[in-house]
């Protein structure tokens, strides 16, 4: 465990130094990488840990972003304060839509989640309840401020986004090794056996879904604050595919893998800007090749070691 901690610490330090060496453009690229990393990490709970093929993550992200945008522009409440509410709303939405479909088998769940993200996008375009601003979206979202300090430059956002990413990574690492996280891994490996061992499979799946959605919703708030404009096209199915690909190519169930995946899929294309047209072409081919030659992803999660005797001593597995 110790060497892992050192690695995370070194990564955190290296990231914290980044804005000193990067110009505004590249800082912004890193900000995008950070946003995608947070989203992909939240998807990782559902897809990587629990093994649910969920390709509608942009829907939860959209709900978070729109909640923040609507409340901020109508009531003038500071964006970051809305974060918990945005998360909760996304979570409630996830609970409502996921409950009836949670028992579907792998690829059917995938198709239904695609359906959900498309319905959400169409609803946003059609200006549902007259609050989403239709196809143009919502603009004029105010910049966030932390303890009176107004965040406006890319450097400031860098620390906001990656700070939130660090929090996400910390909490998800805790989750991964918790009793709940281990149950999710068990469900992923063998659902029937997990059920046989007394794990309430449907309940665990649903909770995993909600955790992922809450986190995506909160991330949506940051996105809305960063862009100050949001439109339905930012939450299209293609975004969900990118998130899905980040998790699968990075190594599903592995936090370092997902972070690496976000750098590769979001950061790397910026280096080849001239070839932007062929970017998605290469993505597609890479997905096929990865599945054929290394279907566990670039950095798959290693086997987990637990000192069972110690756990039992501590009064039952926590």
């Amino acid at each position, binding site marked *: 465990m110790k060497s892992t901690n050192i690695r995370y610490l070194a990564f955190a330090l290296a990231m914290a130094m980044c804005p000193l060496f990067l110009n505004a453009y590249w800082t912004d690229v890193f900000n995008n990488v950070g946003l995608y990393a947070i989203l992909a990490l939240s998807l990782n709970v559902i897809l990587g840990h629990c093994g649910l093929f969920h390709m509608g993550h942009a829907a939860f992200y959209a709900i978070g972003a729109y909640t923040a945008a609507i409340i901020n522009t109508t009531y003038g409440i500071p964006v970051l304060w809305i974060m918990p509410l945005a998360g909760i709303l996304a979570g409630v939405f996830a609970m409502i839509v996921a409950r009836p479909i949670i028992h579907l088998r792998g690829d059917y769940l995938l198709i239904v989640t695609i359906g959900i993200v498309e319905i959400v996008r169409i609803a946003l375009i059609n200006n549902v309840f007259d609050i989403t601003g239709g196809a143009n979206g919502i603009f004029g979202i105010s910049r966030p401020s932390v303890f009176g300090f107004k965040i406006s430059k890319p450097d400031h956002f860098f620390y906001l986004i990656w700070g939130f990413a660090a929090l996400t990574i910390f909490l998800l690492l805790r989750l991964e090794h918790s009793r709940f996280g281990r149950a999710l891994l068990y469900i992923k490996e063998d659902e029937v056996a997990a059920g046989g061992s007394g794990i309430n499979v449907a309940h665990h799946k649903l909770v995993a879904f909600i955790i992922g959605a809450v986190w995506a919703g909160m991330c949506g708030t940051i996105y809305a604050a960063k862009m100050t404009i949001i439109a339905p096209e930012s939450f299209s199915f293609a975004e969900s595919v990118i998130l899905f690909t980040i998790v699968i190519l990075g190594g599903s169930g592995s936090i370092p893998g997902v972070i690496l995946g976000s750098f590769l899929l979001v950061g790397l294309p910026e280096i080849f800007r001239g070839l932007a*047209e062929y970017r998605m072409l290469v993505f597609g081919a890479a997905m096929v090749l990865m599945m054929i030659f290394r279907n566990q992803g670039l950095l798959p999660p290693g086997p987990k070691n637990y000192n069972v005797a110690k756990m039992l001593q501590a009064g039952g597995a926590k």
Partner: protein
Amino acid sequence: MEEFFQQLTNGLAVGGIYALIALGYTMVYGVLKLINFAHGDLFTIGAYLGLTLLVSMGLFDKIGPLPAVILLAVMVMILVAIIGAILERVAYRPLRQSPRLSAVVSALGASIFFQNAIMAIYSPKFLVYPHDILPKTVINIMGLDIPVMRIIMFLTSLVLMLALYFFIQKTKIGTAIRAAAIDQGAAKLMGINVDRVIMLVFCIGPALGGAAGLMVGLYYGQINFSMGWMYGLKAFTAAILGGIGNIPGAMVGGLLLGVIEALGAAYISIAWKDAIAFCVLILILIVRPTGLLGERVAEKV
């Protein structure tokens, strides 16, 4: 009432297209238990190849409209079938023994690849089929004005579907396909070359999809590199609606979905047209996951 019947015929014509594409999904699913996400893009390829052949060969001037369309359809179907077979060989066959997710991701990758390849080769813009090549005649049946093309389209898809149905039910190769769908291992023991059956399925499905693409191009007149995605999703919905893995189910499901969508667009709201299909999809998976005539797909926990 007249509008109702107009929308009904319109829905049946579009439903025929959905049914043709849905057949490709359902056949592949029947044999491989794989959702071929790239199928919608094979449909798009059909539409683009059709346009290229149409413009470059100038068939309509040389041999007249009807032989030209038939020749065009045959060429498109063969070409798309070849692409489908290559897709199977490159992207799916190496994954036959892998976990299901790998094959699904590979299919998605292939879909993204095709879409962007079409965009790079042609252009991201809408392309237009020459619009003066087909009859614009409108005929009157029992007080309804129906464009002739709509009827031709419906009849063509019906003929192709029936041909497929009899091919699967009555011929020896069709029997082999059905056997492979039920139990691949047993089919192998009976001397069926399952690899070849799968290859064949990946020829027939895309061929029908390609034909559907050509029909959409000819009927609607404009095509776009990403249109296969929406058509694909709806055709997949149709396949689920009818019961995936079930060939008559895909036909019924396609026609039904076309009608539901046309009526929904007319009576509920045109802006929500695309959402209707997805609502149908979600409802059918929740309420009756077997589809109207199909096998069981959902797992109870």
